[in-house]
């Protein structure tokens, strides 16, 4: 978890939400009226933005009761207080257009189970995570011999919830093993001026964050 957010005032209602650069990019990927589920939806900022801007049917799952309460205060009507490690058993196959998980997969105990569940339930999955192979991370470990701490990974090793950090290259392998097809990769780099741009050259070295758009591949690989 970590990273910075920007306040965005939504049209019509005038509600203010806090969005990360990934959130903004993801909003652009989703078509009007889609059915969307956000796993680890936090205080519901992305869901509310999608509901207002894209008229989606928004659904969220969140572990923290305080966050669920914040979602209710935002006027979201499908929010489930629960543990993602328990899966998505209540949802039929391909019942959701987009299953989204931003900056969450690395805190799960069993990311493989969840990602398969996401692909079962969702026609498309959008997953974002901090890239542990970013040069700043590599340098801290290589030169200083210390556990990396960055804007995206701000926690001390003994406090972090990030137990399953990964890199862009490793995530590709992971998707293959999970039986998922990668439809699109969006490696992102955020400048010191907080400008977020897509990285075309050497993404695994230069991107601090990656967004993957995935779908279930048939047949399932072992």
């Amino acid at each position, binding site marked *: 978890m970590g990273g910075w957010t920007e306040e965005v005032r939504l049209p019509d209602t005038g509600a203010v939400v806090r969005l990360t650069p990934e959130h903004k990019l993801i909003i652009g990927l989703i078509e009007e009226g889609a059915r969307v589920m956000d796993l680890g939806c936090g205080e519901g900022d992305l869901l509310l933005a999608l509901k207002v801007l894209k008229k989606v049917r928004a659904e969220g799952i969140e572990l923290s009761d305080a966050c669920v309460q914040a979602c209710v205060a935002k006027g979201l009507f499908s929010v489930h207080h629960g543990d993602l490690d328990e899966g998505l058993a*209540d949802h039929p196959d391909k019942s959701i257009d987009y299953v989204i998980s931003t900056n969450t997969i690395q805190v799960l105990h069993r990311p493989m189970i969840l990602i398969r569940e996401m692909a079962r339930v969702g026609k498309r999955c959008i997953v974002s995570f901090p890239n542990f192979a970013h040069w700043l991370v590599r340098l801290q470990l290589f030169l200083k011999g210390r556990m990396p701490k960055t804007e995206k990974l701000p926690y001390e090793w003994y406090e972090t919830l990030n137990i399953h950090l990964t890199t862009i290259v490793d995530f590709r392998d992971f998707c293959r093993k999970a039986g998922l097809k990668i439809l699109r990769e969006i490696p992102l780099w955020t400048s010191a001026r907080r400008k977020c741009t897509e990285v075309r050259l050497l993404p695994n070295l230069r991107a601090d964050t990656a967004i993957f758009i995935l779908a279930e591949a048939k047949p399932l690989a072992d």
Partner: protein
Amino acid sequence: MQEAGSVGIVETKYLTFAEPPNEMVLECGRPLGPLTLAYETYGELNPAKDNAILIVHALSGDAHAAGYHHPGDKQPGWWDIMIGPGKAFDTRKYFVICCNVIGGCQGSTGPSSINPQTGRPYGLSFPIVTIRDWVNTQKVLVDHLGIEQLLCVAGGSSGGMQVLQWVVSYPDRVRLAIPIATTSKLSAQAIAFNEVGRQAIQSDPNWREGDYYGKMVPRRGLAIARMIGHITYLSERSMHQKFGRKLQDKTAYGYNFLADFQVESYLRYKGDHFVKRFDANSYLYITKAMDYFDLTQAYGSLEEAFAGVQAKFLVISFSSDWLFPTYQSKEIVSALRRVDAYVIFTEIQTDYGHDAFLLESEQLSSLITNFLSHGWNQKA
């Protein structure tokens, strides 16, 4: 947070219907009539009649949910912390209705009412009533008040069961549903506790097969039933925090069977207090109605029961509730999600056990306030 106030002095009203020969046929197949419902209302019904909220009470509750009955009345209604101007069920915006269930003893027709055919109290000749019967009578009241669609039905414990029955029986009559600390069917453990309570009443020599009106009432049996109930409403932890092993008005053990410990004295007080306001036969009827409630059995499956629901749901459980544990709320939520209903589910972290829904809670108030106000703004 707005300043919260009281609804002030309120009055219980009565609606009588189902006069013979037009008795209401109950789920058990027997007719019952005439039927009287005791009810109270708070706030104003708006001209569109779309701001009405029905509050449904639990086992020992009644129509008196908020405010006071007379100046100097010390005890406000049972959910006064939630109902009033500026409170979760804000009576400046909403019209709140609460009525006593039939089979009860607080103004609605029950076993202690006079059977007009015999001129004597019904006693055990009163038919078995069910949660569905309760909801059917509540619908008569809602119709009588001219309300086409309720903005919300809300309640905890067996009140929550009534909320679920409402959305199943009358899906187009409810816009928002708030079932709290409840279940779609009681567990064997909960039925067992109810049965022990009933046995305590029925084994009291004063009970006399329910025919005790005008004579000595089975106060021992009813008090014990209430004591058992109270244990199930608290958590081990909250009891420990509240009483520990503290002694009552003494510094050393008495070496006798008087109440040594505070917890003993508390339960005795709760039992004795309850007897003053509750009828033992009503306790039998109401607990039986709870035991019989089973949406799965009645409709084939929970999904089938909820198949036609239109309401949006706010389902709340409490982490330390072992009488209606969280997994039972999750079963409801799971079925609702499977039928594609809008549902918010949250488990509130608390040590107060099942009774938590009756206690002051910032979290509970805020959830209900926000859910209602967004639901209200989003008119269909």
